[in-house]
């Protein structure tokens, strides 16, 4: 039986626990029989492995645990009467207990690497930061990088080699696979296939090539459900050969995105985000910003930052692209202007033309080759090559595709299949029966009753694919293994392990090395071996250590190619899209499903919808009315005879007629967190792969949408209907967004002025506009009854005075700050049930406000951490003084003094305080995950209030350094300034666009700090200033740069 049968079987069961349901869904008599005959005692035997290795693991961690006191409940636990303290036997070099150390490595994703710095304390990696020296990171991170640290400690990671579900050993596998390969030497590896996830690792690629040389007939295939096929095809179509394109947004004044979510799903997204937003920062001395046109088939964070966003059906984008190309003067494109788009297209074309060489057209992977080719044509025509667009040889290793493999599997040409990392049994297109074929292969026996074939899977999890293979080999996490990886531009980085493999896994290159017949060589030796061969002549050791320290290998970026003019592809014929179109997108939290067992990511409120623990079919309000559905109604999506059940989520901004679903949910074997329980519409999401075909990987027309009787409880961290200015289901509408358009009389009475928005023109015309938007309260200074410093009041003009400035223009709502905060501050996960009771614990949240009309809403992201008000309303209501004010203006929350009256939260106008309603941190967190905890932050206990502390542990560490320095040398003002300016909060450090700045708001060492300068900017305003809370966190208003020819100068958001 194949997995789609499994799914249909599942949809008839309810509330099964993982293991039982897995057994039962395999419970067809013949399958059960075969299992018992072939994998004696099989299906659930492997579970037992968990405990032993877990114990081993805890022993391993024991020493550092006791030193760090991590993983213990600290909120109220008093002095332990009897505690052991354990020194090292022989202390490692340069390790100073109590001091964090940073190691540079890189996180592979989609085959590309992004450089990270990993913070390690007493040998435990606990936090991930971006590597400023790495081209793909520039110091920024995204939520996946931040959360991958928790993946390391995932107790559900597979912890042993298993054969048919029974614990086995690596040795046993070697003894099976080696002879098999040897026996194939003369045939040149006939029937041997490798299926890998795409990789750029020079070492692995070299190993593969060598394997290929040993076994010429061996074939290797790759599979990545996200992949870059369309992009590559487009490149081939345009230039006849595959190249890798890379963009330089810092040089672009006008950017047109055709269905490209380049702030999220490109291998260089972090770099693009930084460059793009650097081009949008308007300050006193720099009053210009780039302009972004976006035409997209669903709602993306890129679209939310656009100056002109066009939400149209994805199938129409090709038409739009042609029209745009024509308007830009690309010859050979003959098309009529699509109705109703003229304005947008002409404006965009004009803008592009006006910025030759400084503009850019980006096409998303989701669009077919033709559109990519058109994009290249326009870029070429406008002379952007060499300026905003660069080409290199492809970075990814080349290999055959999945469908070819499956055909061969069907035809029985294959008897040995080794799968590395990827999980096609779950992610393969619905029309490629990989799972069924794999299962058949695994079960097939030869005449003598032994297995005819060998199937093995190397992976972090015993997932769907592993389940269908004879062998599962547990892979080591990237933080546990030696290796290397290239970035989007070819720059290579060395992966160095932060910790010995917790569960004794092996990396791909280690396994390959055994296949190559050199079992004795460790990954480290292999890696060094490769680079020795690369850096002949050079002083290897020096180069090696620099590479390790800086996290990048200098001069490994691929040389830029100079390409001629691209071919313009003749327009393909359109097939009608039908009434409804479905759009598939990688999920903002679990990507293609590989992160679905990560509780941080599962609980992360998705952009726009603030949905947690689920995926949903996002539809526009108009569509919802047409379908007569409301949030949570389950609809059946039928696409060429396959169907899934999906709960709808009404989201303004999704094009009408489009049902937008995200991939990566409905997993059957993800682990305790990510696995669907029983009925696929209950539990963790639905599996969109089930209707996704190879031909239409990103969008498909002609889908039928049938409303079912069922509903599914979608859990969001706020009622998103209440968030806009448009009329909506809420009987009352808040007015959150202040713009020039809000009439004067309304400013004071009908306007909350939470997000202040102006266009660039408006700002240029009147730099004071943002203050004026604040209305009356901004005009006069706020009065106070309290005595000032001169009358013995509190004085905030000495020492360091901490403050934060958040740029609403730069914020793209990517959630990196939220996860970073969670990782840094030991913030517990509370689970779907508690989220549904509005008990989420995130210290910083991103409020997404919708403005304008329902059909074409403007979207505003507003990160909200604690404001650290100088007149904090939370403080004077606390009966025990658990929350007080520091001389440096911090609103201090002392967990161990808190008795939990919760009055502070009631009285907080920003509602940034979070309460431990239950024992989230201890009872509901697994032991392994506790090992990620930051030893410098107290773990809060049941019944205690908590909130953003401006990362006090970082402040204290830096201050102590500064003070020690000043004691040594009172004159070190400059050094002190630099030290304080280097201090970063977790959210600030994670932010890819530098939207968050933190520091002292008064001069340090006589010099004015970054944040102090920002607070002097005319764009600066305080949230709810009129309450006279005097917040230390202030915002820089959101500026947009609309094209006057589309929006009249007086135009503006909301």
């Amino acid at each position: 039986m194949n997995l789609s049968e499994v799914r249909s079987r599942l949809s008839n069961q309810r509330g099964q626990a993982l293991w039982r349901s897995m057994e039962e869904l395999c419970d067809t008599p013949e399958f059960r029989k075969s299992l018992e005959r072939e994998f004696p005692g099989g299906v659930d035997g492997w579970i037992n492995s968990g405990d032993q290795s877990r114990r081993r693991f805890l022993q391993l961690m024991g020493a550092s645990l006791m030193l760090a006191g991590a993983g213990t409940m600290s909120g109220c636990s008093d002095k332990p009467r009897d505690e052991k303290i354990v020194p090292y036997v022989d202390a490692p070099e340069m390790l100073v207990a109590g001091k964090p150390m940073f190691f540079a490595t890189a996180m592979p994703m989609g085959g590309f690497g992004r450089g990270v710095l990993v913070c390690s304390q007493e040998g435990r990696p606990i936090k991930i930061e971006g590597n400023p020296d790495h081209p793909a990171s520039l110091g920024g991170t995204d939520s996946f990088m931040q959360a991958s640290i928790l993946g390391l400690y995932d107790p559900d990671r597979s912890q042993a080699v298993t054969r048919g579900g029974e614990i086995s050993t690596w040795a046993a596998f070697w003894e099976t696979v080696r002879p098999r390969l040897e026996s194939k030497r003369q045939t040149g590896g006939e029937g041997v296939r490798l299926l890998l996830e795409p990789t750029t690792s020079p070492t692995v690629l070299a190993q593969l090539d060598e394997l290929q040389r040993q076994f010429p007939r061996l074939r290797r295939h790759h599979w990545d459900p996200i992949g870059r096929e369309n992009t590559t095809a487009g490149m081939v179509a345009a230039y006849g050969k595959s190249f890798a394109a890379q963009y330089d947004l810092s040089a672009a004044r006008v950017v047109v995105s055709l269905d490209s979510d380049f702030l999220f799903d490109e291998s260089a997204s972090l770099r693009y985000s930084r460059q793009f937003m650097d081009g949008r920062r308007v300050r006193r001395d720099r009053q210009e910003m780039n302009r972004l046109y976006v035409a997209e088939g669903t709602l993306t964070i890129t679209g939310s930052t656009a100056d002109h966003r066009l939400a149209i059906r994805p199938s129409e984008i090709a038409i739009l692209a042609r029209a745009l190309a024509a308007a830009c003067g690309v010859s050979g494109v003959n098309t009529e202007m699509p109705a109703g788009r003229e304005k947008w297209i002409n404006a965009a074309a004009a803008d592009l033309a006006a910025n030759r060489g400084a503009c850019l057209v980006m096409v998303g992977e989701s669009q077919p080759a033709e559109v990519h080719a058109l994009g290249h044509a326009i870029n070429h025509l406008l002379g952007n090559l060499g300026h905003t667009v660069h080409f290199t040889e492809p970075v990814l290793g080349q290999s055959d595709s999945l469908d070819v493999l499956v055909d061969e599997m069907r035809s029985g040409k294959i008897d040995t299949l080794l799968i590395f990392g990827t999980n096609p049994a779950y992610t393969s297109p619905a029309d490629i029966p990989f799972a069924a074929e794999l299962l058949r292969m695994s079960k097939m026996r030869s005449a003598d009753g032994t297995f005819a074939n060998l199937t093995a899977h190397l992976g972090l999890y015993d997932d769907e694919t592993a389940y269908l293979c004879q062998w599962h080999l547990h892979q080591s996490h990237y933080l546990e293994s030696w290796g290397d990886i290239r970035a989007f531009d070819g720059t290579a980085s060395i992966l160095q392990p932060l910790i010995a493999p917790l569960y004794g896994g092996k990396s791909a290159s280690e396994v390959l090395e055994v296949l190559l017949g050199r079992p004795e060589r460790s990954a480290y030796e292999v890696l060094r071996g490769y680079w020795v061969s690369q850096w002949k002549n050079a002083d290897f050791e020096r180069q090696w250590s620099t590479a390790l320290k800086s996290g990048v290998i200098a001069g490994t970026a691929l040389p830029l190619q100079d390409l001629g003019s691209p071919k313009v592809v003749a327009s393909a014929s359109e097939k009608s899209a039908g009434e409804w179109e479905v759009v598939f997108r990688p999920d903002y939290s679990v990507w293609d499903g590989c992160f679905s067992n990560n509780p941080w990511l599962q609980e992360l409120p998705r952009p726009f919808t603030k949905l947690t623990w689920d995926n949903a079919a996002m539809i526009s309000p108009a569509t919802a009315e047409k379908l007569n559905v409301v949030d949570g109604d389950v609809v059946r999506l039928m696409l060429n005879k396959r169907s899934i059940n999906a709960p709808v989520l009404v989201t303004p901004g999704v094009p009408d007629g489009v049902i937008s679903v995200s991939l990566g949910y409905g997993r059957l074997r993800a682990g305790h967190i990510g696995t669907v329980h029983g009925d696929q519409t209950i539990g963790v999401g639905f599996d969109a792969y089930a209707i996704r075909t190879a031909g239409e990987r990103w969008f498909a027309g002609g889908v039928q949408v049938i409303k079912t009787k069922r509903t599914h409880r979608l859990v969001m961290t706020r009622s998103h209907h209440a968030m806009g200015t448009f009329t909506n289901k809420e009987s009352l509408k808040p007015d959150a967004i202040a713009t020039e358009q809000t009439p004067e009389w309304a400013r004071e009475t009908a306007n909350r002025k939470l997000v202040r928005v102006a266009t660039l023109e408006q700002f240029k015309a009147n730099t004071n506009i943002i203050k004026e938007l604040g209305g009356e309260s901004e005009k006069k200074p706020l009065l106070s009854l309290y005595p000032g410093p001169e009358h013995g009041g509190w004085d905030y003009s000495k020492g360091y005075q901490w403050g934060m400035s958040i740029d609403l223009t730069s914020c793209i709502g990517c959630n990196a700050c939220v996860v970073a905060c969670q990782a840094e501050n030991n913030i517990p996960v509370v689970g779907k049930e508690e989220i549904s009771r509005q008990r989420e614990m995130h210290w910083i949240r991103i409020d997404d406000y919708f403005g304008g009309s329902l059909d074409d809403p403007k979207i505003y992201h507003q990160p909200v951490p604690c404001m650290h008000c100088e007149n904090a309303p939370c403080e004077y209501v606390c009966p025990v003084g658990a929350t007080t004010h520091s001389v440096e203006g911090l609103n201090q929350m002392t967990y161990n003094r808190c008795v939990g009256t919760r009055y502070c939260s009631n009285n907080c106008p920003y509602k940034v305080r979070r309460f431990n309603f239950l024992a989230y941190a201890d009872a509901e967190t697994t032991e392994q995950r506790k090992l990620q905890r930051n030893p410098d932050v107290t773990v809060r206990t049941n019944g205690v209030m908590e909130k953003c502390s401006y990362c006090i542990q970082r402040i204290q560490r830096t201050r102590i350094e500064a003070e020690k320095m000043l004691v040594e040398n009172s004159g070190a003002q400059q050094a002190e300034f630099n030290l304080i300016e280097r201090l970063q909060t977790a959210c600030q450090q994670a932010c890819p666009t530098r939207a968050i700045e933190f520091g002292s708001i008064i001069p340090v060492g006589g010099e004015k700090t970054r944040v102090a300068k920002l607070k002097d900017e005319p764009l600066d305003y305080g949230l709810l200033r009129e309450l006279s809370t005097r917040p230390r966190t202030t915002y820089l208003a959101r500026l947009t740069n609309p094209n006057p020819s589309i929006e009249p100068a007086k135009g503006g958001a909301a």
Partner: protein
Amino acid sequence: MTATAESPVTISSGQDMTQVIPVLMPGATYASVTDQIGGIVQRPLTWLWIMAFGITFVVVMVLTGAIAYLLLRGVGIWGIDIPVAWGFAITNFVWWIGIGHAGTFISAMLLLMRQNWRTSINRFAEAMTLFAVACAGMFPLMHLGRIKFFYWLAPYPNTMALWPQFRSALVWDVFAVSTYGLVSLIFWYVGLIPDLATMRDRSRNRFTWTIYGMMAMGWRGDSRHWLRYQTAYLLLAGLAAPLVVSVHSIVGMDFSEAQLPGWHSTIFPPYFVAGAIFSGFAMVLTLAIPMRSLFGFKNLITIRHIDNCCKLMLVTELLVAYGYAAEVYTGWYSGSVYESYMTMNRFIGPYAPAYWSLIFCNIVAPQILWSRRVRQNVIIVFILSLVINVGMWLERFMIIITSLQRDFLPSSWGMYYPTFWDWATFIGTLGLFFCMFFLFARLLPAISIAEVRELVHETAGGSVPPSKMEPANVI
């Protein structure tokens, strides 16, 4: 025993009630009233009482269970969340403390105003106060996230060199409520002393005699004692009267101290005090009306008392109505979007039903009290008193929940749904309250005998010749 016939309600209108219905039915003598009231305590248990007590006792067990589970899991078992971090617990607290206000008000305020009709209701009204305060006092403790550290709210010498944060209204609460509870207890006990002496002298059972005897502290009615006693009692009343006002003012400040729309309002203290006395009298009637018929007190608690209570309720109800009006007016006049939104939210938001039903219970329904016929129809008054109790609970619910659920930032708006445990705790305290009241009614004279004797004297009812007097009946 003296007649316990229902007094004639057929009074030609126009006459002043006070002339017609006396606070004491004629024919009462020192002995008669003493025996009647004292007799209640000494007569054997009735099945009715045992059943009633049993039921309430079971409910108390429910409360115990709810509290046990609370201690086990934490306040998360309730429906509270962020933004609505206060739910039933504080609602019940304010409601109970409000009910607790009538007792002391009746005893103190009316004593100072020389309202002699108070004498026959003040004793159990005070008892009601004590039990209500006991119920109320549990909630601030229970709603703490870390109950084990409740004592941090009190100033005591500690190795942390820390103090409570005296600017917080919650600390004011601790002082106010505990002072109120303590002073009410003292007031109640002092009032009881002469009656305890009476009970001592009446009891023929060594055990009860010893208990009453020790509690009476050897009271023997010495005239000098009486003089000091009366002075102290009067002064206590003089203290209790402002105390009553202060306590609920402070409870009001629990909310008005915040800057939350719907809480941040100067009207709260007086508005809360009025509401408290309002609900208190409602509860007094809820208790008095069944009791006077069950215990045959119709000659002592006459229609006159009920009528007066109703009048007082009408007055306080009007004050409360003014409070509601002022809130709405503030919402409009403040010109603050948050205030006006909050007001609208109460009118038509998700909790609008609660708002309108409390308007009905507290404003509309009591208007019938303008009619004397209604005021003297015990059945209607009894039902009305129940309605008002519900209404006042809803008022507190409305003030707390609707203000919290939608405040400044729409992003953090939310809802509040009470859980099973919310209800269990609330109903549990109801059980506790009545359980204690039933015990009180059986163990102590529910009406102040000494004061009634004094009343008999004042109304010249007691000066009957000795020959006419029946001997002290021996029980």
